């Protein structure tokens, strides 16, 4: 029972938080507000899903924010009348651009043995450069209306579209949860983060696992970027700023351990939702934006401290 609670603690926190807030704030529990919270969560949640894979495998990806911006700008640019690609193709291309960045990260980490922190820091800068090169420093706009469907900001068949990104996020959660819990690759990802030496001794191709998780992380980041561009209706070159840290924070709030070997996709998505709920309630209560940053920062540090304390108590961390 305790194990079950510990495992689903992010969901419990989320439920308790939402309940408490909706009791004190009538604005929060309004349908429109809840829909918009959900819709906003999707971008970070999708980035956090990919990030969780990397974190479980013992790595970290600092480039996801800029890679997302790259995905968004690429898809927006291709969907613009100048190129005139069909919207679906543009979004696939944006997602693919993200996957390519992720693949490069993976190769750097697994083959060139560059520490993940450095490799993805380099990728973050390079991707930011490409974002501005592709967008020429301007906000990319003027895409056809169909471009906005994925993000949920337009009405589809006379219905509000907010559920489209939510559904996309839910489907990704389902796919990646299946991958992690029911396939050999999932076990290998956990083993790679939990004990890389042991994993290699057991015949697990650790390097290949690392390449795969970074590629998937880049892919989800690219897709999240497309989704953001679609929601806002523009390819904003500065939209990636700081989002990598939001994504990492969401993973940590969701129970992933930065030491590797632990984490869940659902937890990461819940973590993203918790952050968005906090931001929302701050907005509703007219708390300054800056205080929101202070809060999220405090929560992340508190959670990591708890993780370290728990591991030390169970004898996993040696002094």
């Amino acid at each position, binding site marked *: 029972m305790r194990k079950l609670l510990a495992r689903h603690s992010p969901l419990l926190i989320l439920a308790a938080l939402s309940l408490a807030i909706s009791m004190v704030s009538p604005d929060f529990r309004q349908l429109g507000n809840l829909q918009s919270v959900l819709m906003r969560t999707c971008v970070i949640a999708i980035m956090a899903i990919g990030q969780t894979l990397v974190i479980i495998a013992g790595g970290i990806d600092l480039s996801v924010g800029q890679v997302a911006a790259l995905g968004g700008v690429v898809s927006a640019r291709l969907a613009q009348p100048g190129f005139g690609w069909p919207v679906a193709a543009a979004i696939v291309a944006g997602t693919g651009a993200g996957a390519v960045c992720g693949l490069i990260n993976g190769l750097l980490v697994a083959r060139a043995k560059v520490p993940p922190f450095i490799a993805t820091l380099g990728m973050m800068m390079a991707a930011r450069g490409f974002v501005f090169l592709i967008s020429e420093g301007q906000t990319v706009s003027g895409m056809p209306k169909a471009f906005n469907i994925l993000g949920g900001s337009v009405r589809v068949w006379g219905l509000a579209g907010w559920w489209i990104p939510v559904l996309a996020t839910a489907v990704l959660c389902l796919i990646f949860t299946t991958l992690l819990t029911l396939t050999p690759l999932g076990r290998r990802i956990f083993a790679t983060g939990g004990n890389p030496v042991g994993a290699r*001794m057991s015949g697990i191709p650790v390097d290949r696992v690392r390449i795969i998780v970074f590629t998937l992380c880049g892919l989800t980041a690219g897709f999240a970027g497309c989704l953001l561009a679609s929601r806002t209706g523009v390819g904003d070159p500065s939209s990636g700023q700081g989002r990598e840290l939001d994504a990492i924070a969401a993973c940590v709030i969701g129970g992933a351990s930065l030491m590797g070997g632990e984490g869940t996709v659902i937890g990461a998505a819940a973590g993203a939702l918790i952050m968005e709920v906090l931001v929302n309630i701050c907005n509703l209560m007219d708390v300054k934006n800056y205080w929101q940053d202070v809060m999220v920062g405090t929560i992340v540090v508190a959670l990591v401290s708890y993780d370290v304390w728990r591991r030390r108590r169970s004898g996993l961390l040696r002094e």
Partner: protein
Amino acid sequence: MAVERSEQPEAAPVPLIELRQVTKDYGPIRALCKVDFQIREGEVLALLGDNGAGKSTLIKILSGIVPITTGEIRYRGEPVQLRSRQDSTNLGIETIYQDIALVDDMDVMRNIFLGREETGRFGLMRIGSMRRKAMEVLEHTVGISGIKSPEQMVRGLSGGQKQAVALARAVYFKNKILLFDEPTSALSVRETNKTLEYILELKHEGVSSVLVTHNIYHAYKTADRFVVLSHGRVLLEADKADTDIEGLTRVVVNT
């Protein structure tokens, strides 16, 4: 280039694994120098020697973790390459490390099947079947255990139990050659005896074992043949009949 060892009788059966004139360099450091080494079918071989003698290097070569620099490896007389862990697994070679090859945060069943999960439709794992088999193999192959369920986390196990899990993994996958890296160094007396007994039991089923150990007493008790390495060279190779524990101790200590 490879010369048959002269003391080997003509009619000797083809060894399961044979290293011929194998040299291994780590950069400027020569870890093994023209080593000839054999593992025969159904024998227990003790690999002895001081730290830095090349024992670990030899084991890593056999496990496919490090490539040889020069020389030749033969499996049942046929030249083979051991370029990866997979190559070695394919030949039925399994290395049993004390505990470093287990993932602490995973349960016993997951560790047994780690890297070799059974899959069914859509590439999904057959968890029920793996659990049943893990239970079986733990129950009837490994007497040490005291492991209550395949869902127990490896973290909480004793040294002997961890080794039991590693052994269960090796045995379940029907390996022909087991390489034990310091099998008794972290075990209690009772666990040590159980492990050594179990190695002998496996021998009767035709499984060859190589014991890498500092403990000459354990080695002498269990092994049929002894190879002593020193500074990357084979110092002594002897059958149990041709040596005694005093003689063996003298060679090992003087290395």
